């Protein structure tokens, strides 16, 4: 009797196992995996933050583009050089230098510097505030509600006590999310090497601009005169515009800027640690 059971069990289980294996073998033959396994592999290399810095709707799309060859291996700005190298290695192609950019906040008119005409009531985000006139007399200025900071997935920004955003240059990987989030187009992406900026976007006439903000560009033209090369800086729409193609970037263009809105090498020092160290200690 027992022997019988053992045999029956072995036979039936063996049989089921055999049947299953045949079935699976058949299934395996009939149906090959369709998805390119390389996509998964690339996703493992990519940061998977879906920040959109590559200009695509998320990391998976970028990975697909890489495989199709429509994207540069250095296309992932958030990943930087390391990721570019790894992708290149995986795909077996030459790595490219990742052009690293960094976000620059082109407005210095915080609470202390600008005149406020009104009191804003409503949702405290920049996009929402921008639907109304906003509070500041300067209609080109940073609104100060931190949409950019919230957009940054990498904690590379903070709003300072003057209600202006600060970018930590050691953390920012140039994904550009903040620039896309800003309704005032205050934030621009620039190559990290770039050091000279006009930190003002006000297109009002000098006389008007001077009245509403202490650090606005008043289009006096001193920087244009002091510029080392012809056309390195131009005045456009009451604003000094730096022509980066021509600007040699090796020296400060002027020390005479009356509102000190055109500055050299200003942001470089701002690291995350330095910023938080500069804050007054919070009582716990």
């Amino acid at each position: 009797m027992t022997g019988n059971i053992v045999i029956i069990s072995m036979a039936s289980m063996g049989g089921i196992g055999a049947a299953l294996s045949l079935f699976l073998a058949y299934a395996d033959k009939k149906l090959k995996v369709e998805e390119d396994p390389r996509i998964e592999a690339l996703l493992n290399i990519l940061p998977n933050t879906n920040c959109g810095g590559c200009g695509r709707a998320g990391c998976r799309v970028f990975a697909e583009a890489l495989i199709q060859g429509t994207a540069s291996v250095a296309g992932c700005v958030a990943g930087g050089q390391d990721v570019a190298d790894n992708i290149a290695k995986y795909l077996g192609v030459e790595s490219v230098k990742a052009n690293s950019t960094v976000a620059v906040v082109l407005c210095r008119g915080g609470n202390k510097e600008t005149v406020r005409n009104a009191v804003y009531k409503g949702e405290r985000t920049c996009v929402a505030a921008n639907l109304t006139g906003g509070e500041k007399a300067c209609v080109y200025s940073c609104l100060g509600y931190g949409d950019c900071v919230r957009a940054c997935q990498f904690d590379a920004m903070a709003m300072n006590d003057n209600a202006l955003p600060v970018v930590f240059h050691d953390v920012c990987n140039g994904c550009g999310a903040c620039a896309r989030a800003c309704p005032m187009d205050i934030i621009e992406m620039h190559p990290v090497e770039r050091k000279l900026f006009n930190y003002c976007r006000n297109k009002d006439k000098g006389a008007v601009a001077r009245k509403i903000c202490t650090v606005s560009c008043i289009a006096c033209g001193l920087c244009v005169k002091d510029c080392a090369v012809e056309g390195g800086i131009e005045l456009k729409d009451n604003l000094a515009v730096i022509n980066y193609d021509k600007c040699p970037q090796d020296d400060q263009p002027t020390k005479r800027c009356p509102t000190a809105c055109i500055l050299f090498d200003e942001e470089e020092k701002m690291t995350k640690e330095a910023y938080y160290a500069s804050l007054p200690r919070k009582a716990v």
Partner: protein
Amino acid sequence: MNNLATKMFLVLTIIGAVSGGILAGVFHVADPLIQANREKELKEAIFVVLPEAKDYKVLEKEVDKEKITVYKGIDAEGKPVGLAFIADGGGFQGNIRIMVGLNIDYLKLKGIRVLEQNETPGLGNRIKEPQFEDQFKGLEIKPKVEYIKYRKPEKPNQIQAITGATISSDAVVKNINNAVAKVLKNFPQEEVLK
């Protein structure tokens, strides 16, 4: 057939066969123990509901394709003392299985034992408690068992329902009535006494 398929075939077949074998072996050892446990439990239950019984006999009948089993309790002298049988039916949640002991005079219960139930702990599952089970000792089954609420039973065929678990109490009573009726019909006294 290619190499991979062969390998798959072999691996699965062997794993299947080996596990089948192991299981059969374990079964061989464990099954008697399991059966013994079951038997012990059954026996215990029968002796609880038929306290005078020292042994029992299994009587089986097939009615309408349904097998009905009763256990005839026999005392030390070999005289039948009563019938034990299982009453099974729905409770508040899930089934309630009760071993019912019927006196050989076919008028009174000798006791019951709740074997399985899924009633709410602390509520319905108090049907398992001796206070409840003991109410059935000597309970008259004619015309049928009844329950009443909030009060002490007044008639010899009544028990008091558990407060807050009327449904479970009701289910026990109903199950017993059903099972008793079935047994009375299919195992007439004369036949059992034989």
